[in-house]
């Protein structure tokens, strides 16, 4: 059962091949048996999952056959879940039981999805390796010595190891696409504002976007369909019609023009990953797509602009963790200042403190214009690059990451080296366009992802191309040994 995709499970539940309770029991047993070596879950919701499974089975026996009814999923631990700890993998929220449920989780609950629990991540989504979690790093099931990517680290590991068929994640600078690439999954980051941010703990508010990690594009389409759309409780939610994603999957690729930005194939790229990307290009050509060389000239400055703006937003957002209303409070504060200083020092990890400091610097008197405002101008140049490119091409294709997943601990003391690994993913967040990573090859037993980028709200096109690719390849169907 654990090898099935969401789509397979949906059909099997409808055909009564097994019940939601049988499936949930099986997956909970796998989590208990296998997760100690992977550390992908922070909280396993055993009892409530079984209750949700029974409720789904009852509805089905009463004749209801909704497509997502009884499908198991797990949530990145920054989505608020009423009555369940929502820690953001931070010490400060180790005891935080969310008083309400995030819109994306609520929508999935309402269509009958079963939540198996909450998934590990980089603390407050700050990191691209999973190593900054207060609960310890998640391990890549393809090689447990290596990082699975991040910040949606547990979201990637749990799905790749077949502990759950799909998961929610969030992507502010690549946090869905990069771990999807490193673990052999399909990960979609929709357009900024496509899925509500309500109840998703803020890291960098003008970048944060919820999305999904699953085995294939078809499963991502199903989850996106159930969750996309306007939410009046999110002030940046997009008032844009939601397309029929499932209908787009089967459309042929004939006539589709795909741009290859030269900046995505620079000397930073591991040439073996370049070979994988080239193979996927050949495959898509055979399916009818045509390729055009393009340029996104401002892309080399994307990482700088991203780390200025995201850190500035993070320093502002995390000001709310003051030890007064929620979160960790230090022992015996001498005065209010001491309460703030010690509570925050004790509660945040190194990387979170670093980004708060970078952000504070970029926003401080005398540096605002040179850093924050400058980065926002570069953000506009990057957006302009994409808008201009999409006048000539329907999609953009390139690698998701410049390198393979690295060994746990190998970059922990060199944050800049880790930041530079985000070079191919942050541009989409700066521009706010949708992106998808799909498995397209293996190198030394490790998965490699190819990234697709589309114009605003053209998620259907991403899913279509990935689905057509997956009809003719089997990279997405591979399972790491032992899982």
């Amino acid at each position, binding site marked *: 059962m654990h090898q099935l995709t969401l789509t397979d499970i949906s059909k099997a539940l409808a055909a009564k091949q097994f019940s939601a309770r049988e499936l949930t029991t099986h997956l909970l047993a796998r989590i208990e048996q296998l997760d100690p070596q992977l550390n992908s879950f922070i909280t396993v919701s055993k009892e409530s999952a079984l209750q949700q499974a029974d409720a789904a089975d009852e509805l089905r026996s009463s004749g209801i056959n909704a497509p997502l009814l009884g499908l198991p999923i797990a949530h990145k631990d920054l989505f608020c879940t009423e009555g369940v700890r929502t820690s953001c993998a931070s010490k400060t929220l180790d005891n935080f039981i969310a008083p309400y449920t995030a819109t994306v989780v609520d929508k999935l609950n309402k269509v009958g999805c079963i939540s198996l629990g909450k998934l590990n991540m980089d603390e407050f989504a700050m990191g691209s390796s999973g190593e900054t979690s207060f609960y310890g790093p998640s391990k890549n099931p393809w090689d447990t010595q290596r990082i699975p990517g991040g910040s949606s680290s547990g979201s990637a590991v749990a799905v790749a190891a077949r502990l759950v068929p799909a998961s929610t994640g969030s992507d502010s600078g690549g946090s869905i696409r990069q771990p999807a690439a490193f673990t052999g999954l399909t990960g979609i980051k929709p357009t900024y504002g496509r899925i509500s941010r309500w109840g998703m703990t803020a890291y960098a508010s003008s970048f944060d976007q919820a999305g999904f990690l699953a085995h294939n594009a078809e499963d991502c389409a199903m989850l996106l369909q159930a969750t996309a759309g306007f939410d009046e409780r999110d002030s940046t939610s997009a008032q844009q019609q939601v397309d029929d994603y499932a209908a787009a999957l089967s459309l042929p690729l004939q006539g589709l023009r795909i741009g290859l930005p030269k900046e995505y194939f620079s000397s930073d790229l591991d040439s073996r990953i370049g070979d994988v990307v080239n193979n996927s290009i050949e495959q898509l050509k055979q399916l009818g797509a045509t390729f055009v060389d393009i340029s996104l000239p401002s892309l080399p400055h994307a990482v700088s602009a991203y780390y200025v703006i995201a850190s500035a937003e993070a320093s502002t957002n995390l000001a709310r963790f003051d030890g007064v*209303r929620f*979160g960790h409070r230090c022992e015996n504060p001498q005065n209010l200042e001491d309460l703030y200083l010690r509570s925050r020092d004790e509660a945040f990890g190194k990387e979170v403190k670093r980004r708060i400091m970078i952000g504070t610097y970029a926003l401080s008197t005398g540096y605002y214009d040179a850093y924050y405002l*400058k980065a926002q*101008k570069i953000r*506009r140049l990057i*957006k302009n690059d994409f808008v201009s490119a999409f006048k000539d091409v329907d999609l953009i294709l390139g690698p998701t990451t410049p390198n393979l997943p690295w060994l746990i601990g190998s970059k922990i003391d060199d944050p800049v080296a880790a930041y530079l690994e985000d070079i191919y993913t942050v541009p989409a967040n700066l521009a706010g366009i949708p992106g998808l990573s799909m498995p397209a090859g293996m190198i030394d037993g490790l998965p490699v992802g190819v990234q697709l980028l589309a114009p605003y709200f053209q998620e259907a096109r991403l899913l279509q191309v990935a689905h057509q690719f997956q009809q003719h390849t089997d990279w997405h169907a591979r399972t790491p040994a032992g899982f």
Partner: protein
Amino acid sequence: MALERCDVEKLAHLARLGLDDAQINSSTASLNAAINMINAMQAVNTDGITPLANPLEANQRLRPDTVTESNHRDDYQALAPAVENGLYLVPKVID
């Protein structure tokens, strides 16, 4: 311009992070490395470019000025480190 130790102390205070000496030292090195990386963007010509704050360039949506939320004070205060009679408790601020 490289950050000195006193700059990092000032930043830590602005951010209300009570860093000890060891953390100030290690932060000085890692912040300088990050700022070096970031400074590459200073070479970009951005004359006449309008800063971009929201990727969709959306404006803040307005809503009618009516009460839409019910009172959740007790639920929210259940999460607080210290409350009394519906109030959040902090150390004495005024002598």
